[in-house]
C-alpha cells in the first residue's frame, strides 16, 4: 500500500479482520490497532521523503488468541525498539505535543522485533489475548518475575 495517511483506513480494516479471527477482546484489539497504526504512521511521516511514492507492506499471521503482524518498508533505516522511550512526566505545560506514538506502540505490543535486511525495515508486532492495560515498556516484567 502507498505510504500515505489514506492507507490507515486499509490498515484498520486489515487489523479488524485479524482481531475477529483471533478472537481478541476490545482492549487487546485496541492495543493491536494502536501498535500497528503508530508504527505505520511513523514510517509514513519519517520513513520516506515527503511526496515520494513509498510503499509499505503489511503481512499477518493469526491464530486463536494471538496476532502477529509483519510491517515491511523500504524507507530510512529506523529501529522502533531502540532507545529509552518513557512517557514524559505529566505537566500539561511542559509535555511535548508529539512523540507519544512510538512509546504507545511499545506499551501496546506484547512483542516488538526489528531487523534491517538489505534495504528493508522489517518490524514484527505480536499481541496476545490478555485484556491487559497499556503498560510502560520499561515497567513490564516477564511473568515469572511478577
Amino acid at each position, binding site marked *: 500500500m502507498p505510504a500515505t495517511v489514506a492507507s*490507515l483506513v486499509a490498515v484498520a480494516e486489515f487489523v479488524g479482520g485479524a482481531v475477529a479471527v483471533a478472537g481478541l477482546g476490545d482492549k487487546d484489539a*485496541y492495543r493491536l490497532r*494502536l501498535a500497528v*497504526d503508530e508504527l505505520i*504512521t511513523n514510517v509514513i511521516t519519517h520513513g520516506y521523503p515527503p511526496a515520494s511514492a513509498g510503499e509499505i507492506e503489511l503481512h499477518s499471521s493469526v491464530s486463536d488468541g494471538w496476532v502477529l503482524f509483519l510491517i515491511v518498508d523500504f524507507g530510512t533505516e529506523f529501529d522502533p525498539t531502540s532507545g529509552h522511550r518513557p512517557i514524559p512526566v505529566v505537566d*500539561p505545560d511542559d*509535555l511535548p505535543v508529539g512523540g507519544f506514538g512510538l512509546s*504507545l506502540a511499545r*506499551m501496546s505490543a506484547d512483542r516488538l522485533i526489528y531487523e534491517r535486511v538489505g534495504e528493508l525495515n522489517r518490524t514484527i508486532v505480536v499481541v496476545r489475548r490478555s485484556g491487559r492495560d497499556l503498560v510502560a515498556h520499561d515497567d513490564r516484567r516477564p511473568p515469572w518475575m511478577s
Partner: protein
Amino acid sequence: MSTRTLDVTVSKEGELAVVALTGDLDSRTAPVVQEHVGRALAEHRLLALDLSNLRYMSSAGLRVMLLSYRQAQCASGQMAVVGLSEELRMLMSAVGFLNFFTVAEDLGKAAELLTETP
C-alpha cells in the same frame, strides 16, 4: 466502500460549545478535528469534547487534545472530555492525561463541572 471515517458535529448547549466525534481519530482525520476544536475554542470559553461515539484514537488524537487544552488555557477557557470508553480511558491514562483533563460522564455533568470552576 469503507465505513471507517470520522464525523464531527459542533453544537451549543447553553454556555457550552460541544464538539462531538463519531468514528476513528488518527493521523488521517486529526487535522479536521483540530480545525473544528480550534474554531470552537476561539468563539467559546467553555468546550466539551464529546467522545461517546469515538471508536478509536491514536497519538494523533492525543496531540489534538493537548493542543486544544493549551489553547483553552491561553484564552482563560475550560474544556472537558465526555463519554470515555474503557479503551480511551486506558489510552489517556497511559500518557497521564487523566491527571489534568476534566472528565465527565455526560454533557450535563460537563456543564456542571466547567461552570463551577472559577
